[in-house]
């Protein structure tokens, strides 16, 4: 019965743009979507955003789905996909925040700096040329001495030392561009002290077992992660054309989300229910689609009705 109702409601929304029909669908399925989102995101605020995005997608795809008798399964799958995408977005957002934060961090020393450079350290090392990266990883991640690094690189101890020195200079430049001024020596010390930490005792054995069976015993999330990573690797090979396409898609998706988020439109005039809480009404004018403000008398506050 409910499945039939879903398709009817979807058709009403798709064909007649019935907001009531869509609201009924949301009421019926919002708990399911939210619960799946919450389990995946682990955060009520994030789950709310994911739920909102899922129903936005439903609205956009209503025309294609209007013959579906049961949309709960589609919603479930879409929620999971959206939550995964959300996690990736959160990671990117976090990285941008770290970068932004680093802009304001200047001239700090070793132990203070680690928490701030840690999120970007691996990206910095990954950006080095292969021989430099190998040298840095061997010297500081694995703790090899210069002779061992030289042997691994097929070079002398002196050559290894020079390569490490140049690589550290590149890392110094990387962090400097992001506002953290450190000497190569401090970078070396900080990486040595912090870049690798002990994994839980049982983890190694577990990973070895699962990996040996080529992932047969791996959890669903791990398999998904693997699949995503493999896709990412394929994307990397495809390079420019696909990346450009993805950027276009991402941009289009973002714009749509903003518009549909609460179905807002730009304000067309000074909001009617707003009032001047401090200052003079004459300090605020509307012209050519812009609110213009002018003050020489201190605080001017134009605010909404409470």
């Amino acid at each position, binding site marked *: 019965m409910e499945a039939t109702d879903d398709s009817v409601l979807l058709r009403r929304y798709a064909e007649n743009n019935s907001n009531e029909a869509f609201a009924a669908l949301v009421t019926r399925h919002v708990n399911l979507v939210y619960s799946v989102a919450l389990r995946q995101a682990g955060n009520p605020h994030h789950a709310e955003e994911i739920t909102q995005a899922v129903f936005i997608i439903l609205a956009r795809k209503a025309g294609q789905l209007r013959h579906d008798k049961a949309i709960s399964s589609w919603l479930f799958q879409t929620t999971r996909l959206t939550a995964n995408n959300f996690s990736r977005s959160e990671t990117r957002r976090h990285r941008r*925040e770290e970068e932004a934060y680093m802009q304001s961090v200047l001239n700090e020393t070793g132990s203070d700096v680690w928490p701030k450079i840690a999120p970007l350290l691996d990206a910095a090392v990954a950006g080095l040329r292969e021989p430099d990266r190998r040298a840095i990883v061997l010297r500081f991640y694995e703790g090899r001495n210069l002779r061992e690094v030289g042997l691994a690189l097929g070079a002398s101890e002196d050559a290894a030392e020079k390569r490490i020195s140049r690589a550290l200079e590149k890392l110094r430049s990387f962090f400097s561009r992001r506002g953290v001024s450190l000497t190569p020596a401090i970078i070396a010390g900080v990486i040595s002290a912090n870049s690798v930490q002990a994994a839980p005792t049982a983890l190694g054995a577990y990973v070895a077992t699962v990996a040996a069976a080529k992932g047969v015993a791996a959890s669903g999330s791990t398999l998904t992660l693997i699949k995503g990573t493999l896709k990412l690797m394929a994307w990397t090979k495809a390079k420019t054309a696909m990346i450009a396409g993805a950027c276009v898609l991402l941009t289009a998706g973002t714009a749509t989300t903003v518009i549909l988020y609460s179905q807002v*439109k730009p*304000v067309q005039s000074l909001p009617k229910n707003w009032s001047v809480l401090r200052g003079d009404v004459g300090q605020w004018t509307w012209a050519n689609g812009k*609110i*213009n*403000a002018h*003050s020489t008398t201190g605080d001017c*506050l134009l605010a909404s009705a*409470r």
Partner: protein
Amino acid sequence: MSATVGTTNRDADFALRMQDADSGYYVLFVPNGTPWSKDNGCLVSLLRKTAGEESTLAMYRGRGISEAGQSAKITATAKGPWFEVQLNGVTVIRTKDTTYASGFIGLRIYGQEDMPCDATFSKLMFY
């Protein structure tokens, strides 16, 4: 809320969760190259104002802050205890404060006789 904002001489601000004219939160946008920024630097910041006393909760002084007279899109979101500010679509501030859980929103400027403020707000949107 979000808006495309700009100022030639000082700052253009949002007000969030205002209790009255003296208590709430401000998001400040100070572009580079204004008379004000020469002394104080360009920035995007989140302030809490309590009984007229302002305290900075978070500040961003990095890349992407436009020049005086150029506009920038500022998006400020308050959700529960979390505050997020985006500059041209990039999150530059995300912080937490529980002092005011609700209140009204608005636009704010601050100017003085010897350092006036002229600001514009367009494409104003509320979420």
